């Protein structure tokens, strides 16, 4: 019943819990605790994918997140489909559906494999040298073909429905990696009572200890020691343990991003659980215990299914009870592969031979292998392999001369030694150094408050690793006395020598004809790397980019050092002289939606609404987005479209009264002894003489003299101004003010407070406005004489305190009722009710735009675009000529700002009153001029005005005021439209209504 290659006993799988899954449509059984890779191996499946370029059959190479070959698509339906997952990390669940990628029509027979035969014509960078003829053919013809051939998996076809969440956490010590070093560090740090977070990308803590057989730590076997360590950590309240959690990015100031996979390993996750959780951890100290990765050997045909890292094979046998083959050849430059050979032999794998690159391997484990009857061939390398969908044999030959021997096998285990995992350290901007003795890059100078421990800094002996972790844990906690830091662990484990090999292994084949892979996934061979150096690519970054070595989804985890060695060889430079490519986040690929978290749909960006919003929604308003605000654009009645609704709303305001929600306007309270002086400096206008109780329209410039914002300002008291800004400009204006206040004029005694959210603003506009408000107001005389245009009074309305503005952005008699936001809705309701006898009409932003355009009032951001002076937009009168200084004054004095041919605001009337110009359309003198035409300006605002009875438009036109009376042209795709240039006021030119 059980899978053919499942060992009868052993491993950390739960044999009581069988799990069924499918791979490429075929059903298999594994056990709880299996990864997809271990379950497939237990079923004798090694062919799992096709390579990127040559579509070569590929098997499972590793047992970890560094896997370059075994990439699969997993998902029961399209909404849950994820491409490019590493089978070595996917935990199987009942009913899981997995498929291989990058093959057509099937994994065993893939048409794309013709590329393999054409390999000699497709060396590194071939695409830079060809596909250039005929002109334009690249994008039309070649590129689509290349694109189809490239890519690995396929995108999901449907939107993911899972949830993702985010958490922020702080701790004294974050430990990344829970192998022996990380566990020891977490134990030591947490013992002091400081907050510790320990994370590991695997499903279980323990790292390499989970596949040790005869190792004893402090008298307990390795697995028991791990269990006890984890139990101890669990029992401490100051510890947070995160399995299946990858530290993917190391950001400035010890911010580390963790990706926790919460439900992928569950067959039927509860709906309350997110699929993944993003942790943003700010740690005082970080301990990196990320371990090391076994390095492949680069030999001819080293990529066939069945070629596997020696340590990975050991993991499959010891930890998963899965036998990776029946007959193995081992190819090594390091002792560790002997230990693997011995473990596999014990698991029933026949070890045909160990080919050791070293001329004279010695040491306990070597002797043990010999004693166990394993054939050890010193000074021998693999010359090549055979087998199409699975390795069938390896040919072995002495490094120096002699015959080769073909050894049948279904498994080839290789080990080129170990490479410390430096990704996170490098991301932290720590400096790496080449260690001659270890022949590896190791962490040298930390930049953050960080320390690396154990294998990731080249320490391998288990006792040393544990002691290293412990010491770092104590130091990171910062509590222990330095003498207490050392702790000895008694360890009984195999002692291994540490050596290795980098770059291509010696062989006697024609190097120009064989494929010896450096980067498995991207199909980069040793030849490709050498070709790059031959073509003058000398920086390792250039070689990487030209050959694409190290740019696959494993980011060169298994290939970087081999590529580096080949380059250093080819250039005759030492490895450190060649340098190392930069490690970039994330450590392993990280889900897009994890970053988005809850920021999705409605929550994508907060929605800002006014106190009147619900009323508007109930009354059928159509809203528009203005920044993050929702503003009512118009209130259609009975099937009206926007134009009909706006025409009706406009007429109501001009003929009777309208009500408008102005609450989104930015509001800033400017208070203090020097408030008037501050206003004088920030705005072009003069403020000193503005009396309390009066309003003034203010214009604010940037330092370069261009209009930045505008708004009506009320002087509430000698030392207090109620400033309003545009809706979108509020934060910008406050920042601008604060910037000047804090950096330029710290001597001024002024305080700025944003009050946008504190005031609801209800504009009541139209000839009947006073009649509507009068009965509701207490303590304010609204009469024309007592409260003229541009004045402000405080008092009560409907019993609520108010700052009542008499102001108009419509050209009609108008008031803006400011009341505390919480009363906004109640006051609005009361005004609306009081207005009923007058047919009070709610209007939206669109009507507001039309009404102000009829009067020629500008909207900053519509008439202006950051290149206009006040004079350009007809606001020269608002610039206090006599003022000593204000922001932008000096810039306004520049000759360019005075030129008569600057773009100036004018009105535009089409000869056909029904023609409404398109906003943004260009204005030219001669519509028949050839392209490129010289534009004189453009249309900034354009509407059909029901009140004026025709279309009206505003434009910015070069020398515009001097062109009043001229006819210009607006070229459109269907022909030019003639326009008369006029004064930009279309209604009540004398401006009398406002004083009504």
């Amino acid at each position, binding site marked *: 019943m059980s899978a053919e290659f499942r060992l009868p006993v052993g491993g950390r799988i739960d044999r009581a819990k069988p799990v069924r899954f499918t791979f490429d449509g075929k059903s298999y059984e594994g056990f709880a605790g299996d990864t997809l890779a271990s379950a497939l191996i237990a079923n004798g499946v090694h062919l799992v994918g096709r390579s990127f370029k040559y579509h070569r059959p590929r098997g499972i190479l590793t047992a970890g997140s560094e896997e370059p070959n075994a990439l699969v698509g997993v998902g029961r339906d399209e909404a*849950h*489909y994820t491409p*490019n997952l590493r089978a070595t990390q996917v935990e199987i669940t009942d009913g899981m559906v997995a498929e291989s990628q990058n093959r057509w029509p099937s994994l065993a027979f893939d048409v794309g494999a013709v590329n393999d035969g054409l390999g000699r014509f497709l060396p590194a960078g*071939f*695409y*830079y*040298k*060809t*596909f*250039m*003829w005929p*002109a334009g053919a*690249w994008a039309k013809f070649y*590129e689509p073909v*290349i*694109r189809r051939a*490239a*890519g*690995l*998996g*396929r*995108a*999901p076809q*449907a939107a*993911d429905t899972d949830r993702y969440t985010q958490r922020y956490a702080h701790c004294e010590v974050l430990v990344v990696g829970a192998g022996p070093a990380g566990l020891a560090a977490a134990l030591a740090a947490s013992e002091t009572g400081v907050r510790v977070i320990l994370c590991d990308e695997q499903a279980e803590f323990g790292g390499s200890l989970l596949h040790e057989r005869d190792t004893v730590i402090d008298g307990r076997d390795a697995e028991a020691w791990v269990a006890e360590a984890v139990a101890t950590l669990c029992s401490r309240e100051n510890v947070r343990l995160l399995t299946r959690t990858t530290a993917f*990015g190391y*950001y*400035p100031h010890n911010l580390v991003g963790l990706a926790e996979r919460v439900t992928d390993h569950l067959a039927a996750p509860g709906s309350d659980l997110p699929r993944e959780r993003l942790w943003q951890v700010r740690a005082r100290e970080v301990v990196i215990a990320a371990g090391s990765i076994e390095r492949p050997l680069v030999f001819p045909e080293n990529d066939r299914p069945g070629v596997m890292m020696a340590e990975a094979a050991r993991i499959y046998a010891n930890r998963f009870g899965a036998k990776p083959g029946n007959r193995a050849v081992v190819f090594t430059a390091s002792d560790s592969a002997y230990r693997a050979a011995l473990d596999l032999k014990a698991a029933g794998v026949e070890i045909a031979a160990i080919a050791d690159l070293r001329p004279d391997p010695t040491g306990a484990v070597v002797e043990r292998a010999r004693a166990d009857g394993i054939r050890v061939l010193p000074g021998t390398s693999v010359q090549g392999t055979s087998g199409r969908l699975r390795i069938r044999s390896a040919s072995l030959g002495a490094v120096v001369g002699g015959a080769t021997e073909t050894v049948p096998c279904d498994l080839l285990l290789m080990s080129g030694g170990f490479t410390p995992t430096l990704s996170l350290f490098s991301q932290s901007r720590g400096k790496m150094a080449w260690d001659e003795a270890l022949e590896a890059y190791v962490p040298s100078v930390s930049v953050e408050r960080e320390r690396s421990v154990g294998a990731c800094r080249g320490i391998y002996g288990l006792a040393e690793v544990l002691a290293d972790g412990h010491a770092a844990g104590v130091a990171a906690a910062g509590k222990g006395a330095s003498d207490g830091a050392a702790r000895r662990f008694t360890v009984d484990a195999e002692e291994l020598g540490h050596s290795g090999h980098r770059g291509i292994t010696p062989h006697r084949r024609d190097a*120009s004809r064989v494929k010896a892979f450096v980067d498995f996934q991207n199909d980069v061979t040793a030849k490709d790397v050498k070709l790059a150096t031959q073509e*003058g*690519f*000398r*920086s390792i970054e250039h070689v990487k*980019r030209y050959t694409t070595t190290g740019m696959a*989804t494993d*980011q060169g985890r298994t290939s970087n050092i081999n590529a580096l060695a080949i380059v250093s060889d080819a250039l005759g430079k030492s490895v450190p002289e060649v340098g190392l490519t930069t490690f*970039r986040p*994330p450590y392993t*690929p990280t*889900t*897009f*939606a994890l*970053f*988005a*978290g809850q920021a*999705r*749909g409605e929550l*994508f*960006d907060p929605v800002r609404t006014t106190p009147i919003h619900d009323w508007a929604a109930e009354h059928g308003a159509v809203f528009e*987005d203005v920044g993050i605000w929702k503003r009512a654009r118009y209130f259609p009645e009975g099937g009206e479209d926007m134009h009909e609704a706006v025409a009706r709303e406009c007429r109501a305001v001009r003929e009777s009264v309208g009500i408008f929600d102005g609450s989104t306007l930015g509001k800033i309270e400017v208070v203090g002894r020097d408030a008037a002086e501050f206003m004088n400096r920030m705005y072009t206008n003069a403020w000193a003489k503005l009396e309390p109780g009066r309003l003034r329209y203010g214009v604010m410039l940037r330092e370069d*003299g261009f209009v930045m914002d505008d708004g009506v300002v009320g002087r509430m008291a000698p030392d207090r101004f109620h400033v309003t800004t545009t809706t979108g400009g509020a934060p910008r204006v406050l920042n601008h003010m604060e910037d000047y206040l804090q950096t330029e004029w710290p001597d001024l005694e002024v305080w700025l407070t944003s009050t946008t959210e504190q005031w609801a603003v209800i504009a009541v506009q139209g000839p009947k406005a006073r009649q509507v408000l009068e009965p509701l107001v207490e303590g304010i005389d609204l009469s024309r004489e007592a409260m003229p245009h541009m004045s402000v009074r405080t008092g009560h309305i409907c019993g609520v305190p108010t700052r009542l503005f008499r102001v108009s952005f419509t050209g009609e008699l108008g008031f803006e009722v400011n009341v505390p936001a919480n009363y906004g809705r109640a006051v609005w309701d009361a005004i609306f009710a009081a207005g009923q006898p007058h047919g009070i009409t709610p209007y939206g932003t669109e009507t507001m735009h039309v009404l102000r355009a009829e009067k020629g009032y500008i909207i900053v*951001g*519509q008439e202006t*675009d*950051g290149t206009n002076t006040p004079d350009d937009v007809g606001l020269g009168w608002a610039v206090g000529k006599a003022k000593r200084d204000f922001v932008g004054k000096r810039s306004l004095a*520049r000759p360019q700002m005075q030129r008569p041919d600057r773009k100036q605001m004018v009105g535009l009337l089409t000869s056909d009153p029904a023609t409404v110009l*398109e906003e*943004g359309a260009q204005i030219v003198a001669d519509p028949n001029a050839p392209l490129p*035409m010289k534009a004189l300006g453009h249309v900034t605002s354009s509407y059909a005005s029901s009140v004026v009875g025709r279309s009206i438009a505003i434009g910015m036109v070069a020398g515009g005021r001097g062109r009043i009376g001229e006819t210009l042209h607006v*070229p459109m795709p269907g022909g030019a439209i003639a326009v008369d240039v006029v004064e930009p006021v279309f209604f009540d030119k004398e401006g009398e209504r406002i004083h009504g």
Partner: protein
Amino acid sequence: MQKFSGLSLFAKAFSSHKGWEPQWRSPEPKAAYDVVIVGAGGHGLATAYYLAKEHGITNVAVIEKGWLGGGNTGRNTTIIRSNYLFEESAALYDHAVKLWEGLSRDLNYNVMYSPRGVLMLAHNVHDVQSFKRHVHANRIAGVDNEWLSAEECKAFCPPLNIAPGMRYPVLGGALQRRGGTARHDAVAWGYARAASARGVDIIQNCEVTAIRRGPDGAVQGVETSRGFIGAPKIGVVAAGNTSVVMAMAGVRMPLESYPLQALVSEPIKPVFPCVVMSNTIHAYISQSDKGELVIGAGTDAYTSYTQRGGLHIATHTLDAICELFPQFRRMRMLRNWGGIVDVTPDRSPILAKTPVAGLYVNCGWGTGGFKATPGSGNVFAHTIARDEPHPINAPFTIERFRDGVLIDEAAAAAVAH
């Protein structure tokens, strides 16, 4: 220069590609050159190439502190378009697009210019107004740019979400069909190879540490980590480091340097046919020939030289990508990096003579200079060779900030990739 072609590739295959020569020389620096270019990014290399090709000035060195193409040229998301608002900009960027069209053959290097269309999305009324203004302005400037409805956007880019209930619904978009992408490394390498073949020395791993000026104030050459190199004309093309290099000659630049980020997904089969940009919610996306989704993020709020940006910036962009393209939610980020961009107050570049005799500067491309590479190099070479600007770059002076004659592309687009 060895000719690259399908035929030569085929022929070399039979000698196991032993016949390929280095694509550029790696000479020792000479004591002096007629022109020294500081910075071997795309713009610097292109400048050198056109100096040699169009002005016969071949005694040129391009000096690079790292490896050629390793700055923003090799870090950008390669969006190419020319539908800028102002005539001056449209002329400059369109000059580049015209050169892109023939660049592979001019350089004999496949730079993979792929005009598959750049679609800029409008999400609110203000966007619509602004993009329509662009469309109209571009039309009479002779630059292609067209307005698409939301449905037309969806037809052009099937993965796009145009559901009306989105937080920021797609109201339409401006499409430039000649816009697209190119392979950034190939641009640097192609120019390097072609310039080198014409005699230009490219000196890598050589940092300029000072600019020497004579008693008359004119430049005399540069001090470098490999010694003094004389030159009567120096062109500074150092992108994010321009302020630092120009300060060596005592010139203060109106620039701020910010980290700008990009990221790619794991490679997938073709699914994304064009380039989509959304300035309003900060997302820029295309799919590379290798299959990776190439995504541009925003700049940090603070100036910095660190070549990496904050996590929250990349996060914010992925929010937007997931909203606009919900089918990519389960895709995974493979690599994330940053570059330092040099930003001017009006978001338009500076391509000009400077107050120092013999010193020229090409900078301020900010978040969007890759697209301009050929055009910029072309007119900057003219400026250096003739000691006066080409009509196309004449408006792009340093003095415009003093005088207030801005070419304010910032007004229209918060970030102009």
